[in-house]
């Protein structure tokens, strides 16, 4: 179907459009220059029109998400919604697959990436991605504790490492390289962790710094579309901002003209100062200063929101530490030769000094880092569900709203963070940049995150007039409008209308195909040899393209 979205107030930072009244034309799923034939007209007069949202870090599929659902019936029960004509949805922090797709669509998002794909169970990740309707998807492969990666790093054999990563991305149908607590998860297999970038991983004799360095090098060598996606060592530990800064400094001097070379994810959890929970305070200013200074690093917020959350990460040792601290129910999964996972429920209370400070640190990051370098995320569902994005957007745009919130949070926020004194108010354009333009650019999805000619027909229309409503003052109106798109268009199809589901579609799965037989000739013997230590045969490993519902390989030159 062809569409004309008429008279909307368009914000499209990539194309320099900020609050212009204009028409958007969509023909065969793509934004075009000229009026299409037989087009259906959507009247967007006096309404905000933007590109579909892009979430580049959200835990929505795979073994750990499903384990969280199994262990949290109380959460599953809390988000029940019947959708006549569609599938039912459940869950608050861990929605079912349908709930994930529907909620993104209702919020005006059309793309979401699962950032933690364990290679050995990659097909489980894809089965769940395939079950999510409405949006386009992709996933990053967990690589920072992989035995082959550590072996090649130790030997300094970057050629083989590049070949291996090309193969691994292909076998797991992944889009980018994810590094979680490099070396620390391997150490956790015998109850240890990595505490600094120069700690040595037992047996493998490499350091977290070595692993980051080599994977960044290889990521550039392979010209992958996405920077190395790093979850730093020492997550959740007071004083960890130093480790985070050190990790960032590792890529000093490495440049790529098209994109950053390192993306430090959910940086809130890695921006802590102090040396214990007693002296816990914010290190966000230091992190923000550094990120603003350099051109080759971006971050996402990992913003906590008050209420229930489910923490889930490959960082299994960090999760065990959290279990010891909170005594909450705890699941763990050690994944042979590759990675791990830890899952437990968590509650961010405004009255708890630690969680209140975490909340403030996330906002400091969002406000102090240049909006062209920070993506709006909650690290769903670690900081809370992705459905809180409109709340976070409102907080970033309105000091008044922040002051209201500050009045109910623990006083430690005043002492331990700079949030109360931050005057910055982001503009609506900034927020669109942080939720569309930047994440799409970081994923190098040229047809996403903007409304220029040639872009995919992914559009969100929100029921407020940005030329009249001032987000600083009318934050309530803006937050409410952003929470429920009046219309969401995905690939030229109207999937949400009047805030309700209109049509169920299934999006594509992006993955990077850069692998060739030449790669295999370099690494084949090593890979096969290591299968003596896997519990499955080499031939059982990986995902074939035809198993995916809508495979969308991206070729890399």
């Amino acid at each position, binding site marked *: 179907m062809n569409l004309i979205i008429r008279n909307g107030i368009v914000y499209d930072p990539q194309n320099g459009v900020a609050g212009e009244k204009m028409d958007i034309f969509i023909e065969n799923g793509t934004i075009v220059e000229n009026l299409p034939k037989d087009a259906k007209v959507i009247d967007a007069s006096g309404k905000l029109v933007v590109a579909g949202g892009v979430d580049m870090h959200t835990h929505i599929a795979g073994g750990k998400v499903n384990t969280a659902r199994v262990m*949290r*019936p109380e959460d599953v*029960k809390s988000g029940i919604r019947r959708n006549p004509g569609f599938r039912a949805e459940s869950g608050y922090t861990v929605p079912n697959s349908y709930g994930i797709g529907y909620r993104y669509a209702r919020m005006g998002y059309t793309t979401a990436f699962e950032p933690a794909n364990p290679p050995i169970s990659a097909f489980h990740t894809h089965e769940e991605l395939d079950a999510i309707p409405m949006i386009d998807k992709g996933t990053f492969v967990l690589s920072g504790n992989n035995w082959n990666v550590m072996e090649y790093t130790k030997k300094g054999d970057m050629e083989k490492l590049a070949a291996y990563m090309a193969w691994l991305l292909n076998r797991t149908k992944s889009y980018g390289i994810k590094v979680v607590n490099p070396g620390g998860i391997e150490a956790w297999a015998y109850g240890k962790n990595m505490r600094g970038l120069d700690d040595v991983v037992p047996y493998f004799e490499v350091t977290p710094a070595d692993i980051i360095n080599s994977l960044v090098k290889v990521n550039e060598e392979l010209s992958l579309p996405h920077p190395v996606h790093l979850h730093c060592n020492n997550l959740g530990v007071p004083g960890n901002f130093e480790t985070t800064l050190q990790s960032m400094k590792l890529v000093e001097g490495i440049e790529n003209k098209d994109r950053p070379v390192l993306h430090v994810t959910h940086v809130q959890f890695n921006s802590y100062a102090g040396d214990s929970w007693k002296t816990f305070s914010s290190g966000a200013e230091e992190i923000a200063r550094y990120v603003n200074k350099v051109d080759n690093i971006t971050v996402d917020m990992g913003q906590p929101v008050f209420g229930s959350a489910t923490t889930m990460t490959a960082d299994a040792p960090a999760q065990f530490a959290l279990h010891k601290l909170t005594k909450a129910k705890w699941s763990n999964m050690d994944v042979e030769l590759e990675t791990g996972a830890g899952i437990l429920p968590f509650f961010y209370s405004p009255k708890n000094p630690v969680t209140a400070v975490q909340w403030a640190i996330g906002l400091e990051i969002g406000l102090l880092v240049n909006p062209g370098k920070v993506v709006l995320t909650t690290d769903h569902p670690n900081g809370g569900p992705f459905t809180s994005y409109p709340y976070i957007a409102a907080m970033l745009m309105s000091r008044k709203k922040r002051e209201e919130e500050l009045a109910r949070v623990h006083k430690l926020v005043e002492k331990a963070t700079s949030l109360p004194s931050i005057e910055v108010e982001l503009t609506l354009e900034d927020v669109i940049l942080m939720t569309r333009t930047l994440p799409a650019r970081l994923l190098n999805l040229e047809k996403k995150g903007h409304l220029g000619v040639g872009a995919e027909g992914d559009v969100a229309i929100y029921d407020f007039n940005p030329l009249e409503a001032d987000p600083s003052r009318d934050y309530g109106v803006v937050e409410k409008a952003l929470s429920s798109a009046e219309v969401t268009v995905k690939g030229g199809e109207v999937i949400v209308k009047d805030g309700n589901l209109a049509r169920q579609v299934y999006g594509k799965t992006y993955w990077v195909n850069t692998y060739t037989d030449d790669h295999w000739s370099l690494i084949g013997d090593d890979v096969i040899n290591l299968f003596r230590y896997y519990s499955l045969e080499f031939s059982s490993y990986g995902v074939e393209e035809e198993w995916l519902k809508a495979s969308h390989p991206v070729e890399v030159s």
Partner: protein
Amino acid sequence: MAVKLSLKTELDVPVEVDGIVPSVVGGKTLEEIQSLEVYHGNRVVKLGEIFNVSLEEGEENLLICEGDFSKVKWLGKGMDGGKILVRGNVGPHCGAFMKGGEITVEGHADDYLGAEMVEGVITVTGNAGSYTGAAYHGSMNGMKGGKILLEGNAGSYLGEKMKEGYIEVRGNAGDFVGYKMSGGKIVILGDSGITGAAMKGGEITVKGKCELPPSLKEEDGKYVGDILEGGKGVVITG
């Protein structure tokens, strides 16, 4: 006027009557009551399709259920006052989440009797199933107040995660009496199975025989624990 329900015919699949509580039916006309909606399996039906409904002389806010209601679920769910009298057996979840009033069952009750109830009194002349006064899967707390009196026996998991309130069982109880309970009192006049496991607080008295896990510690003729939970619960036996 009291409202009386009796089944028109024997039920094939269960009917779920949450919402049909004294404060809702009280003061309504016969037609209004008959047209209240309930679930019969996957069908939404009118109350009058399943039950004979009549108005009788009697107390205001009294709901009388006449006959075998063992396939009627969620009777008195969340009720906030008034009385329900069941002259027969009743199905699962009777009085769950109850906030006030009285339920009397002249027969047997099923599982989840008074589960997560907050206030009110439930009396059963016969037996109850498992999870009486307990928490639903995933919930932090079971019964938070009120009273449950069973003249017969209780199944397993009696008072699991109970926080406050009182349960009395004249007969015997099954395994895991007061599992993870944190407050309130349970009195069993007969025997019970494993009792007091993972208890954090509250008090259980068993007049007959019972089986204690090794993690309850004898102190002055009482058992205190569960010591693995740092618990301060008390079990009094004999």
